[in-house]
Each structure stands twice: as structure tokens, then as C-alpha cells.
């Protein structure tokens, strides 16, 4: 592992540095994914632009409209933020099962998104929460719907040089419930074999008004089971519907076999996770 490290003082400074470098550079924040990739040689970079000391990208802000998570906020910051945890238990649940405390203290939400692993836990949770990704590039700032961010494993729609500045989450409507579940071979220190994040908003008479089902490690990117969501929306959710939605979610996946699990297992447990996740949300509603 060898590279030059360029310390950015601000987002604009980072963009400036990026513009001055030849191809092959990367942004780095916590580095918990990138350093490993560089050391294994699966990725090679001569130059890293260090975002970690950019003050404007730290911390979690809360206002009347919702939450703004600086891209540099860590998994631990998410876990310990009471307002965010109360609003979106799924996000806290996802942040709490990423690596051990050592990783959660360093790994950032921006890095988790930009790394674009199909198994990224926080990314899957944010996908279910309709997060907006604030990005800044040479053409200025824009907000990207999270569902439009991911392309495939380690590929996003961010333009070359564009960086993630923040993640925005709207304040949940009154009866919103969310859950995050994952399976792995161990009870900790697991890259998800399958993960599922569910977020359901209920209107009067317990009718589900909005449903989001986001799934990890069952396709080339964190994906939404949109047909399953449509089954739930506008309906009163009962056991039969939960089973149908879970089966539909399974049908929307295209899992692969790898040393962690077979496609058949992933396919089977994704249905179980979705069923459980919806039941959890309905149970508290």
C-alpha cells in the first residue's frame, strides 16, 4: 500500500485538489473499506484526498423538516443520536451492526454510500428511508434520490470528482415504523449475507400509505422491492398480505452464490427477513 495523501480543508478545496490530480485518485474519509481494498490490491490509488477534517461535513443536524447527516458522521454518531434513533429505528439498527465498535467509531455514512457495496447495511436502511444525497461537484451542488445513487457493486451515479456532502432524511409522518434485519454466519462482525430494511407509514384506519422495502446482498446493488411495496400500499396489512409481499420481494431479487452463501439460501431468507421486518413494523403500529 502506497499513496500520497492530500488533506482537504473544505468541500470546494477537495474538488480543487481532485481537479489538479491525474486519474486514479480517491476520496477517503474513515478509510475502513478503502484502506483494506488498497492493501489487498483490489483497488489502486496513487493519491487519496482526505475529507476527514472538513468541518462542514461533520455531525447530525435536526430541524423542523428532518435530519441532515454530514457525510462524515460515523456509524457511532448515528447510533448515539437520540432524535434520529427515535424517528428511524431501522437506521440505528443498521448502524449498530456494522463491524465492531472500532469500525463504527471511524466508518462514515458518506463512505458507506460511496463505497456502494450491495451489502452495505446503512445504505440499505437509508434506501428504505427515501434519503436524499447531497452531492457537490465541479458543476455545483445537487440532491440525488438515494434510489438513483447506486448502479452496481462499487459504482454510483456520482460524476467524476463529485463528493457526498450530506444525507437528508425527512421527519417521518406520525405513524411511521421502520425495521432493519440482517443475517450472517456470526452474530457480529458480519458483512450481510442478506439484509432488509422496511419502512411503513400508516394513515387513518391503519391503512399503509407508504411502503419501502430495501434489500441488501441480493442483487448487484442495494435494491428496492417495488412491486412488493405496491402490494402493501393502500392496504390494511394482515398475515396473508405480509406473506404475499415477502414472496413478491423474493421474486424481485437476483441473488448470486459466493463463499458466504448460495443464491438459494439468500433467496429463501430474504423472504423470511421481509416477512419479519414487515411484521415488526405492523406489530408496533
Amino acid at each position, binding site marked *: *500500500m*502506497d*499513496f*500520497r*495523501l492530500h*488533506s482537504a480543508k473544505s468541500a470546494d478545496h477537495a474538488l480543487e485538489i481532485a481537479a489538479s490530480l491525474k486519474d486514479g485518485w480517491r476520496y*477517503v474519509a474513515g*478509510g*475502513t473499506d478503502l*484502506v*483494506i481494498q*488498497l*492493501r*489487498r490490491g483490489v483497488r489502486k490509488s*496513487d493519491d*487519496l484526498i*482526505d475529507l*476527514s*477534517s472538513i468541518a462542514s461535513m461533520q455531525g447530525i443536524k435536526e430541524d423542523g423538516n428532518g435530519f441532515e447527516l454530514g457525510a462524515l458522521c460515523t456509524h*457511532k454518531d448515528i447510533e*448515539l443520536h437520540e432524535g434520529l434513533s427515535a424517528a428511524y429505528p431501522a437506521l440505528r439498527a443498521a448502524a449498530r451492526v456494522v*463491524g*465492531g*465498535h*472500532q*469500525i463504527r*467509531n*471511524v466508518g462514515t455514512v458518506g463512505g458507506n454510500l460511496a463505497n456502494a457495496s450491495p451489502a452495505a447495511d446503512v445504505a440499505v436502511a437509508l434506501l428504505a428511508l427515501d434519503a436524499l444525497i447531497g452531492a457537490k461537484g465541479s458543476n455545483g451542488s445537487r440532491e440525488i434520490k438515494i434510489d438513483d445513487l447506486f448502479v452496481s457493486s462499487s459504482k454510483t451515479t456520482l460524476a467524476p470528482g463529485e463528493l457526498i456532502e450530506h444525507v437528508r432524511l425527512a421527519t417521518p409522518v406520525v405513524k411511521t415504523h421502520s425495521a432493519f434485519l440482517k443475517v450472517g454466519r456470526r*452474530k*457480529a*462482525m458480519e458483512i450481510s449475507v442478506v439484509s432488509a430494511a422496511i419502512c411503513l407509514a400508516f394513515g387513518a384506519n391503519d391503512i399503509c400509505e407508504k411502503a419501502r422495502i430495501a434489500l441488501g446482498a441480493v442483487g448487484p446493488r442495494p435494491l428496492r422491492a417495488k412491486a412488493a411495496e405496491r402490494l402493501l400500499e393502500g392496504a390494511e396489512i394482515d398475515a396473508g398480505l405480509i406473506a404475499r409481499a415477502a414472496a413478491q420481494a423474493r421474486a424481485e431479487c437476483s441473488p448470486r452464490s459466493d463463499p458466504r452463501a448460495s443464491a438459494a439460501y439468500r433467496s429463501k431468507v430474504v423472504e423470511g427477513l421481509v416477512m419479519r421486518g414487515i411484521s415488526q413494523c405492523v406489530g408496533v403500529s
Partner: protein
Amino acid sequence: MTTMHELNLTVNGEEWQLAVKGAETLLEVLRKHLTLTGAKSNCLEGECGVCAVLVNGRVVNSCILIAAQCNGAQITTVEGLASGETMHALQTAFLNRGAVQCGYCIPGMIMTAAGYLKENPAPTEEEIREGLCGTLCRCTGYTKIVEAVQEAAQTMGAK
């Protein structure tokens, strides 16, 4: 690629001014520049925790942390945990509860526990197990380690 970075660190209360390469990790700086070998080297991928130290009070895996990102930070390693001649409550409890076998993970385990207890000073057994999950021990099966952390938490809480 020999661009050097100025790195100012406070390690176990001592101030250091160093020049490091961009790709050097905090573990390399501690072990090679400072010859503090308490933090151990194993997987170098953040999976085992034997290299755990505190950076500004939070536990991190020093093997995957780029050192230059720590400029200005306060670092505590296992060597800096005791106050003078008096061992830290975690060190005493690990020793007295028989929680140490080969000892290779122990510096990392103790620092992991130290970081976790700052966050949760009175944990249950289950919470301790979650708090330590990022650091692997092959010798002990964790039973006596969990007991030691429980005992240390009580000692620390009583003070």
C-alpha cells in the same frame, strides 16, 4: 511517493512531532516510529482488534487508520492506561480474573473495553459481549474476559 506529512500526536500524555508517509497507518507509527509495541499486529484489515487504541477517547483499529488523519489527536495505548505505578481497573481485573492466556489480543481487548465503558459505564453481560465483539480472542472463549470487564466496571463505578 515520499511526500511526508507533519503529524503532531499526544500519545499516552507525551507529545510527538513526526514526519510520516501518507500511506502509513497509526499502527505503523506507534510500533515503528514510537516503538510502542503494546498495540499488536495481526489481520491488518480491521477484523480482529488486536491493534485497538483510543483516539480522542474512542476505540479504533489502528491497523486501518491512516496516521496522517490523526494530526492533533490524543492517543491512548495499553502502555498509557495505568496511572503511574497503579494499573488501570481493567488491567487489574483481567489479571485477577484469569482473563489472560497468550495475551496477544489483551492490549486490544482492554482498549476495546476501555472505549466501550466510556460509552456505557454499567453494562450488562450481554452488553459487554456486544461491546467487545470487534476484538477476537482465541484462547479464553471470552467467559473470563466478560467477567473481568464486569468487575472493572464495578470498580470504576465505585470510585
